[in-house]
């Protein structure tokens, strides 16, 4: 009797571990259109109304916890923001006249049809679930293919770039945040124009690394980092240029290339409402995205250095 119990217990363990390994291997090897991925999307479609309801029901609890955190930091944030407003007002006045000259020059040289964030239409969604895992910086939002959302669409909020869409069901979508290990963004230091790739710093969900900057680049703490509008590696999203990503917090040496730490502008811990930037089908942004998706993998894969591998750019004129 005892032997039978022991045998059954071991058999259950072996069966469950084997089943997990089979699932893991099959899922990892199959294409995003494969059976397990479809099953997962189907499950998401079924549970998303429940998730949505639970999210609304649990929102007061989440807000209560958020309120404690916000209250603790409110005073120091207020003082810092006042200083920032003063500084930005001065900058705004100087930039407005530059902007006017810039627009006139663009028209003069017929470069005024560049793609920017305004070329996309924004689909507003609410975050209904967030992964607790250190290795998956992902959230589920309550908009999906029925709302025009597609894989690789950029996701922003009022503060800056949040991430990109990596899975879509009919009424929900998975967004991989910019701190997720799967996401890399071609970026540019706004003040100097030097380009690199923003990647997550594994183990530190509050920080990013802007890597592959040319040696001796002039990057100072406090500089803003924005999307460059180029693609440097396979699978990267074609983010429109000029979306704020973060602010340089410190610099570090990295052999021939430089790397700097970037603090994301968007508060990724407390996401509630986000906007998915979708390009209308037939628009130039959509055509460029489709053309990029149809390129052979080798053509899209760069050497890892921003700029060298960039084959598609939203910033070019024609």
């Amino acid at each position: 009797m005892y032997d039978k119990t022991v045998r059954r217990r071991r058999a259950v363990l072996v069966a469950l571990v084997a089943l997990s390994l089979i699932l893991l291997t099959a899922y990892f090897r199959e294409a995003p259109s494969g059976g397990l991925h479809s099953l997962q999307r189907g499950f998401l479609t079924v549970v998303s109304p429940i998730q949505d309801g639970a999210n609304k029901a649990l929102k007061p609890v989440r807000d209560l916890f958020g309120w404690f955190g916000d209250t603790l930091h409110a005073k120091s944030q207020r003082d810092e923001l006042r200083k920032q407003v003063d500084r930005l007002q001065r900058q705004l006045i100087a930039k407005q006249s530059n902007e006017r000259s810039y627009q006139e020059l663009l028209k003069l040289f017929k470069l005024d049809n560049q793609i920017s964030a305004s070329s996309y239409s924004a689909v507003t969604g609410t975050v209904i679930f967030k992964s607790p895992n250190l290795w998956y910086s992902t959230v589920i939002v309550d908009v999906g293919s029925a709302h025009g959302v597609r894989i690789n669409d950029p996701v922003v909020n009022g503060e800056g770039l949040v991430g990109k869409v990596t899975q879509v069901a009919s009424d929900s979508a998975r967004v991989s945040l910019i701190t997720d290990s799967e996401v890399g963004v071609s970026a540019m230091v706004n003040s100097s124009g030097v380009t690199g790739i923003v990647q997550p710093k594994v183990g530190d969900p509050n920080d990013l690394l802007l890597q592959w900057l040319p040696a001796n680049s002039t990057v100072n703490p406090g500089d803003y980092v924005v999307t460059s509008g180029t693609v440097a590696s396979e699978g990267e999203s074609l983010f429109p240029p000029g979306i704020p990503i973060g602010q340089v917090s410190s610099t570090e040496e990295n052999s021939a290339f430089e790397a700097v730490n970037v603090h994301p502008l968007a508060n990724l811990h407390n996401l509630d409402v986000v906007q998915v930037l979708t390009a209308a089908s037939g628009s130039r942004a959509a055509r460029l995205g489709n053309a990029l998706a149809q390129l052979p993998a080798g053509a899209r894969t760069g050497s890892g250095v921003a700029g060298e591998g960039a084959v598609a750019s939203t910033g070019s004129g024609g």
Partner: protein
Amino acid sequence: MGTGVSASLALRIMALALALVFVQIGVISEVPVFGVTIDVSPLLVAFVGLLCGSMAGAITGFAVGLLVDLMLVQTLGVTSLLFTVIGYWAGRLRELRDPQAAIAPLLVGAGAAAAALVGYSVIEFLLGVDAPVSLDLLRQIVLGIVVDTVLALPMWLLVRRALDPGLPDDPRRRRRRAYTTGGLSPLSRS
């Protein structure tokens, strides 16, 4: 069920697991503590194992892991694999040692959190995650274990309270109860 778990206990485990997974990914994940995201799901699996035995722990671990992976659209099988092992290990601990010390849930909680955090890291590296690794990762893992250990005691009380009516009667618990009952206390005889 074939695992020494009654139908009512199985239903209780299912309801508790569903509720906790929803609360975990809907609320708890949104509230970082000391910069780390709290994850109580390994604690739930470990405590089900500690209360109900290795088979119930392993099956609960697999089911909770699969649910988490499906709901969060993560790589299927990763969380199931880890949670199956955690549930089984906690159940075997009960079957072999039957720890009764008050500190036991804390240690089991710390062990479960460590296994989950280190296990995820190892599996992600085996799957070829393309990202630099720094000392920050170790700091996050250690902080995660500390936070989960702090939460282990309230989670243990919650899980035990939820499952207690369905658990088979424990002779040792009965003995302890007898001594605290007026008529059977040795003190009352004098």
